[in-house]
């Protein structure tokens, strides 16, 4: 099970990082062998790396690494609410730290709204959701000129059914980094 997991993580890494420069090769652990002993013939299996150890959390690769908070880019909001919920604090803290550490990196935050009512008013509501995320990030270390908050209103809904579950998915802000917009 553990091996399977490791392989699938590796597979994800490989597919996810197709366009990234290759990571430095891992050196196998040095075998301390003063006393001759049975030769290790076991093949080298990928080591499962504890989160945060094997990659630089401030690197570009981390933006797409599924183990990194930085790969999480959606912030959902409650009905008629423009307040970032507590459950997103850790996620936004990671993005705020990343922006602070990578001052040349820019971010586009796209706010969204469900499709009930006026398109232009919904555009303004989406803007409030994008602005709320931007404000959290600037409080967490990002600088104002790194982030542009914009709205897509009801135009790019993730879901188009007239159900509460669907509307909830459209009350959303999406985070994009340089190169993604």
């Amino acid at each position, binding site marked *: 099970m553990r091996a399977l997991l490791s392989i699938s993580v590796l597979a994800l890494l490989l597919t996810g990082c197709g366009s990234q420069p290759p990571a430095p090769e891992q050196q196998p652990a040095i075998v301390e062998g003063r006393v001759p002993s049975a030769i290790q013939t076991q093949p080298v299996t990928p080591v499962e790396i504890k989160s945060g150890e094997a990659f630089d959390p401030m690197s570009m690769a981390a933006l797409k690494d599924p183990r990194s908070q930085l790969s999480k880019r959606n912030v959902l909001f409650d009905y008629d609410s423009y307040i970032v919920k507590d459950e997103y604090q850790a996620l936004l803290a990671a993005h705020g730290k990343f922006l602070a550490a990578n001052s040349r990196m820019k971010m*586009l935050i*796209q706010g969204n709204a469900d499709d009930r009512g006026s398109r232009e008013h919904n*555009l303004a509501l989406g803007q409030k959701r994008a602005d709320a995320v931007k404000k959290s990030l600037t409080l967490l270390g990002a600088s104002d000129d790194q982030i542009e908050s*914009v709205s897509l209103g009801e135009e790019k809904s993730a879901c188009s059914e007239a159900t509460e579950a669907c509307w909830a998915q459209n009350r959303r802000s999406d985070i994009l980094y340089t190169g993604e917009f």
Partner: protein
Amino acid sequence: MRFNGFATRNMTRMAAAWLAGGLLFGAGFAGIASAQLTVEITGAGANRLPVMVADFSGERIVAQALASVIRADLDRSGLFLLIDPAGTLPLPESAAPDYGNIKSRGADTIVGATVAPTADGREGRYETRVRLLDAVKQSSIGTQAYVHTGTQLRATAHRIADFVYEKLTGEPGVFSTRIAYVVKSTGRYELQIADADGSNSQAALASREPIISPAWSPDGGKIAYVSFEAKKPVVYVHDLASGRRHVAANFKGSNSAPAWSPDGKRLAVVLTKDGSSQLYIVNADGSGVSRASNSPGIDTEPRWSPDGSFIYFTSDRGGSPQIYRVAIDGGTTASAAERISFEGSYNVTPRPSPDGKSLAFITRTNGRFQLALMDLASKQTQILTDSSKDESPSFAPNGRMILYATEINGRGVLAAVSSDGRVKQKLSIQAADVREPAWGPLVK
């Protein structure tokens, strides 16, 4: 068959518009663009004027084409009861009308015309002489002559229908005007321009990203709109004849909701460059931005009053979205905002009527979004529709009809309703979503 000339001409123009628009072009669009708006009349006025459009005499094919478009125009307006001319004689200029026969069929007014090749003898050019007669008083109401080619039949017919409409109602007709709307089909958005009867549709812009909020310049030559092609909303001004467009507002943040000043020199827009969505005024070329509202919440959907003295807009400043207005003097705000809507918790998208006396807007009641009309002096409000997802109302330039977007069976359609709520039309395109209508100005 006789409109073949139209089809080829439009294809060429359409292709030119796309190339100039510079976004997307491909064979796929030809199919979409040819899908025409069909108009279905779903309600008519209470007291319709009985009118007979006699068969026109002269050049037969041209005469028939003109008369049938004029009849369809007058019928669609909902103000006229079309009396079938079968069995009556055409009414060439020289002929004395058989008033007794016409009156006995119930017509109070008769339209007659003669179509003849022009005197200069040039191929394919016609002179159509129209006369409008009062069958009750047995007298002439007016005459008008039109010189046109064989490829301008629909346009000529709309002009004649406008003449008849104005003579009989005292208001300008809008049959020669154009409408703009957005058609969404799988992953494609087109800003289309069509005649007011839905025919002759052409794509002014095609994009993979959404296009919203089209607004006609007062001279009818340009359209301002919001395009999301840059992954954010940006306001463009698009010249329809040349296909050239320029950015009118692309500040940091969102740029949306363009509205032309009545003189066509400025645009009211909504920007978020200084924080929340607020009203600003820019010159139509994109220069000289100045802030026009100042509230902690959302101010959006500006619309100038026809005399240019007010901007109506939607604001959340009182806790729920409501309609307000501010006085405008020389491009700057000259008063504190005055609240206009009070009933209910959601009143948005204000559109002042061409005479400035009433306001169309969208109101929410029991979860339904409906088109409403308020008399600005008395504040009396009437809900004009029985649908539940109405959006984006737009007055006909004579104020008689209001075009709006709504949904039928989950599909976006356009609908029009008269300002008294009686005349109703539905405009739809098969297998596509139609939304964001904007009725163009009167043709000079």
